[in-house]
């Protein structure tokens, strides 16, 4: 079967069967930022936005996204680079394999939560696993990024 949806602002079609997951469709369409880390919805690496909301693309059936808007890191390059520069400034991307999914969820968080505190940040991002960093550097990057955004709003 074919499924038609909007990927990063462009209308696309893809072949899929009943058990094809969105993750595989997106990688086949060249969105290599979307990584598979576990197949069991535990790691957060495959996080994308479905109609603007964070979803794990390993648990979204491809046929269920007919007509919907999918956004991957490739579709938010400028914002990803902006936050990514804060992550890199801490050395907290490390191997980088979890970075795309993590960044997608951070960008969703800053849009959704107003002035989240540390506990709210940890809670929101708790599904994004990282084995390299111990999470502290990611948290420093998020805090500095949010400060930077506040300053941008003020100026």
């Amino acid at each position: 079967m074919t499924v038609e949806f909007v990927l990063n602002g462009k209308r696309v079609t893809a072949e899929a069967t009943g058990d094809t997951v969105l993750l595989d469709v997106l990688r086949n369409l060249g969105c290599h930022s979307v990584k598979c880390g576990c197949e069991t919805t535990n790691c957060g690496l495959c996080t994308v936005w479905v109609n603007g909301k964070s979803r794990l693309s390993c648990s979204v059936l491809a046929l269920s996204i007919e007509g919907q808007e999918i956004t991957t890191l490739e579709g938010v390059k400028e914002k990803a680079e902006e936050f990514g520069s804060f992550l890199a400034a801490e050395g907290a991307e490390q191997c980088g394999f979890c970075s795309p999914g993590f960044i997608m969820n951070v960008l969703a968080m800053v849009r959704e939560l107003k002035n989240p505190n540390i506990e709210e940040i940890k809670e929101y991002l708790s599904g994004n696993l990282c084995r390299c960093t111990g999470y502290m550097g990611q948290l420093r990057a998020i805090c500095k990024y949010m400060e930077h955004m506040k300053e941008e709003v003020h100026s």
Partner: protein
Amino acid sequence: MRVVNQPVPKVDSRALVEGQPVYTDDLAPADCLIVKLLRSPHAHALIQDINLTRALAVPGIECILTYEDCPDKRFTMAGQSYPEPSPYDRLILDQRVRFVGDAVAIVAGTGKEAVNKAMKLIKVKYEVLEPLLDFRKAKDNAILVHPEDNWKSLFPVGADNKRNLCAHEEDGQGDIESVLVSCDYVLDRTYHTKANQQAMMETFRTYTHLDTYGRLNVVSSTQIPFHVRRILATALDIPKSKVRVIKPRIGGGFGAKQTAVTEVYPALVTWKTGKPAKLVYTREESFIASSPRHEMEIRVRLGADKNGIIKGIDVYTLSNTGAFGEHGPTTVGLSGHKSIPLYGKAEAFRFIYDVVYTNVMSAGAYRGYGATQGIFAMESAVNEMAGILGMDPVILREINMVKEGQTMPAYYGETANSCALDRCLARAKKTIDWDNKYPYRDMGGGKIRGVGVAMAMQGSGIAALDTASVGIRVNDDGFYTLMVGATDMGTGSDTILAQMAAECLGCDMEEIIVHGVDTDSSPYDCGSYASSTTYVTGMAVLRTCEILRRKICAKGASYMNCAPDDVEFDGEKVLNLKTGESISRQEIGNRVMCNNEDALYASEAFSSPISPPPFMVGIAEVEIDKETGQIEMIDYAAVVDCGTVVNPNLARVQTEGGIAQGIGMALFEDIVYNEKGKNYSNSFMQYKIPSRLDVGEIRVEFESSYEPTGPFGAKSIGEIVINTPPPAIVNAVHNATGVLIRELPVTAEKIYRGMKNKEK
């Protein structure tokens, strides 16, 4: 220093945060054959028959390979310098299967669906054998994991396959028995650490294809490209000249990828079919057929006088290498050689070990590499000794720890040339506010908080063995290419090596392009493991830069028609000190491309006769619910002496990440098998790794010594950082509740039952 000791961002950071296609699976051609492995459902069995008829009929199936298609030439998947200490005990596929998940057949086809369908249609008849699952009963058991006569040990490690022994050794100095007899207090305890998964976010994966010259090209997520070349040549029984290995970006390794877990399977498919092939392990496969930490049981006998001087240390380690001996003979050595030397006043030590085969998945290399297990036992024993002596465990360490300048008999007789362990302990104690928090504080509401301490050491490369070389070339406009064989697996080693080169050559980071790793073009490096890259490869960078500077000076002098002794290179230009005339690096770089016979290229190697240990102290603060035993991490103060810190950001993140992994090992990570040898811990639901809600606060500081033999005074950082959490957390639990836990992980159940038993 201008570039070294600065928090420079990683040279590859932009590609990583933009999600660029830079990892193995992103780079594999779309027309790759998909390779999957049919796995044994039995822990121990002989294959009687494999019927492929129906499976081969599935449209799209290219080939199905069984043990009959594989060379009868045993090899090891361990990535170690030749001749490998790990025995040659594997075939690519074997008629005997040795654990649940052992590979039985390699299936390759044009799509995932076809391959999955074919896998279900392969009919295998097994003669099921009784498995050997208890590592305490493995030595000299009637069940042999490797009865075969072509099993081979290349190195005198005390291995004997007819006794299920992968290694055995006895070492020591002084008369341990009489020293222990003379002690006022002797403690005799046994500790048990479990197998743990590295659980790097990118699972094992490899793709292979034939190049223009008919050579096998291998792109793999590996820490050991040069060892993979040798392993593949041995396993496939082909010349090494026929193999090329390329390492792209790696999504984490932590030692897991110091074993060639996936490479041989697609390589065999490509070699047989001539077609590109790829094998990407699922997370489940990465959990059931990989290279986890060796489970160890460690008995420590510790003798002290009434003043708390530790006078004798006796360690016996039993290590479980599983079905194959990858890293078995070597990890175990660290359990004693990197724990006993922490205590500098011992008059005698003894260290004996056995490494045994069993029918569970093969163990491998995991950050810490045996030191983690040994340090858990040693530091727990020292904490228990503090209890027996009625002493503060910090004070017991203050009076016993190894000091700078001391010889360490149990560390191969090396001297601690650089050691700030005393400063690390003092600072960690202050950071956590030990004197006000030790041993515990009742927080009210049924919550109690305890603090616990541990020290650690590691090495910096393998002494007199690890070899690294780099090459640096001057290009047009004078920029440099730094060619490395060391493998950045996400740690940032490409970055810190470039920092060292930029420092030595007096240029900016942007002027250094790092290239690696491709076994056809990169200078030889044994790979990134054993905490070697900063120290060993770093020194190769320093040596290479020194030679290259001389060549640049000579070339500049020749262009200015003066003697090389009359010039100086300041990084930007070669200056004639007598005339003030100069020629820029840019101009030299451009001019050497015409009418020139002197290559502006240098390549030097380095190997060290010693392996200077980094040291550290970790202090954990945990909160325990007195009703349920539930444990929560509150705070972790870590102070590290890795010598000069080459990149403060990357060293900090390494430390935080290592501590988080250590917290996982301490609190919940455990590979559990059922009574038939089936691995239950086969997903992130059964094998939990810490999330950001589980680690509490981690605070990292550095107390740097200066290592005279290291690059800019640096030692290693990568491995040591995982070693302190298990013993520090066990100590904190003990200080909070009085419950002593000697078997990891420290679960709420164990704490709860311990508290209940104490009430009785």
